[in-house]
């Protein structure tokens, strides 16, 4: 349960600003493109995620992985307070500028996994995320998670069908297989939503990934918790999201904050400059 319960709590909370700067990647109008690999004010991911996390399909782990802005607040002395549950962390305000008209979404990558295919072979991997890893990242909310795929490096030589196994029930006992096509046409850094099976309401966790046997290349699977979004109508015209406009989002201090951009025209994601106000209370 969120602990920031009033405007007085917000006023009293200790706040600091995190800077999120990213420079352009190649994209196409209408394509969601991950900024994980874009250069900026913190180390970019060296994709696919598998290359930064070791072999096998893995969850993102907590923090310390390239591509994610560190929100931990060590420099403010808050890390131990977060770890001990004394304080919770919130995004309370965002000021965003971009150099191209676009839509931007920010999310916490709750789970991620990468598969590397060699031609003629399959893949068969477990996600190493368990309930204890994921629940804190939801910060007491009942937020619906989103299943997406992406390609952070390389290119597949042909479409690959993967089977993604996940849990859909609250008790983590009901699992389901989702068949998803990873299109070879996916351009670098592009992200695509994966539709759930007919009638399936939502996924809670990912557990297993298998498939392959044709083609070669890489792809990534993401489970996302949406945090905030905004529209850049004009280049360099700031957008501000305040506490009452959907700010005040509780996030975990080891949140894997990441963004995707969908440009309205042109072939670059443009430059992005955000001041993210964080509050501990």
């Amino acid at each position, binding site marked *: *349960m*969120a602990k*920031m*319960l*009033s*405007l*007085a*709590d*917000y006023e009293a909370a200790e706040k600091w600003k995190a800077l999120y700067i990213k420079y352009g990647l190649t994209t196409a*109008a*209408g394509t969601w493109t991950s900024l994980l690999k874009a250069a900026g004010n913190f180390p970019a991911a060296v994709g696919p995620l598998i290359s930064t996390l070791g072999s096998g399909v893995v969850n993102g782990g907590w923090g310390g992985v390239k591509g994610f802005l560190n929100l931990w607040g060590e420099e403010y002395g808050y890390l131990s307070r977060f770890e001990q549950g004394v304080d919770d962390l919130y995004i309370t305000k965002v000021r965003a500028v971009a150099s191209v*008209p*676009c*839509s*931007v*979404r920010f999310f916490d990558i709750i789970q991620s996994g990468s598969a590397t295919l060699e031609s003629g072979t399959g893949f068969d991997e477990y996600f190493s995320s368990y309930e204890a890893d994921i629940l804190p990242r939801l910060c007491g*909310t*009942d*937020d*619906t998670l*989103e*299943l997406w795929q992406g390609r952070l490096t390389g290119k597949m030589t042909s479409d690959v069908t993967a089977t993604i196994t996940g849990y859909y029930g609250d008790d983590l006992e009901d699992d389901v297989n989702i068949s998803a096509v990873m299109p070879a046409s996916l351009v670098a850094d592009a992200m695509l*939503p*994966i*539709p*759930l*099976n*007919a*009638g*399936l*309401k*939502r996924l809670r966790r990912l557990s297993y990934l298998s498939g392959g046997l044709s083609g070669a290349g890489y792809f990534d699977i993401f489970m996302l*918790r*949406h945090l*905030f*979004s*905004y*529209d850049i*109508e004009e280049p360099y015209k700031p957008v501000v*999201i305040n*506490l*009452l*406009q*959907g700010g*005040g989002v509780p996030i975990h201090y080891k949140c894997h904050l990441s963004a995707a951009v*969908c*440009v*309205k025209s042109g072939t670059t994601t443009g430059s992005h400059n955000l001041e993210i106000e964080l509050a501990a209370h």
Partner: protein
Amino acid sequence: MSIQSLDDYISAKKQRVIIQRTASITSVAYNQSQTLHLAGNPGAGVLAGSNTANGVVPTDATAGCPIIDAFDSGAVGYLSGLELHSPVAGDFTIYDMLFKAGAYAYNANTTLASQPSFSSRVPDGNYKGLELWLEAVTAFTGNQSCRCTYLDQDGNAGDTGVIATGVAPIIGRMYRMPFASGDSGIRQLNSVVGSVSTVGTFNVLILRPLCTVRIPVANGIVKYDFTQTGLPQVYENSALLCLPRADSTATSTPWCALEIANKA
């Protein structure tokens, strides 16, 4: 028992509910289309209604509608925020689907009986503003006409008369049925009569509109806070829909995140 102040909003328990479609269908420009049966998140639902004799009251357990987690005991729920992205320009309306009857044949002549009540999903028992819609389940041949009788917002008998839609609806196309003069809402559907067309099936829906937003430019995002949604009430079993009226002739693949706040 409800949100009555800024502090109440800040302290309210919130959940984000996603409605995303990854498949698109052909639509008629700036006419509303049903998309619950398309692939996405949640997974596809079923377009054809399952009951013509009585109708059903869809809930969040209905396939194609997003699940809503239980509210705190005694809490009141609200649509407190909305973010929507669409690859095509158009209007999008969030509805609570209160009643669904169908699928009726083009020449149906059905008097409903023992209709289930949706009164628990109508705030303050105020039926004004509820809407009566047709939606095409299969494509029609010939311009469909339809007549519905109903109980109006106050429980009095109402009759749309025979409405010539002037269109041969394509799959998913929706058509708003006008009420009789003086009526402003509906609390029960009583009969459905189709005519003129020679092929096609359709559902009849009663919808409660919650909020409408517009994407003015393709690939834009619109973001409404609670002052813009107006905090319409939602229920933990609401059957939420996000229905497009695209400016062009495809529904495309919109993504919508709804913030639902509940406060005890």
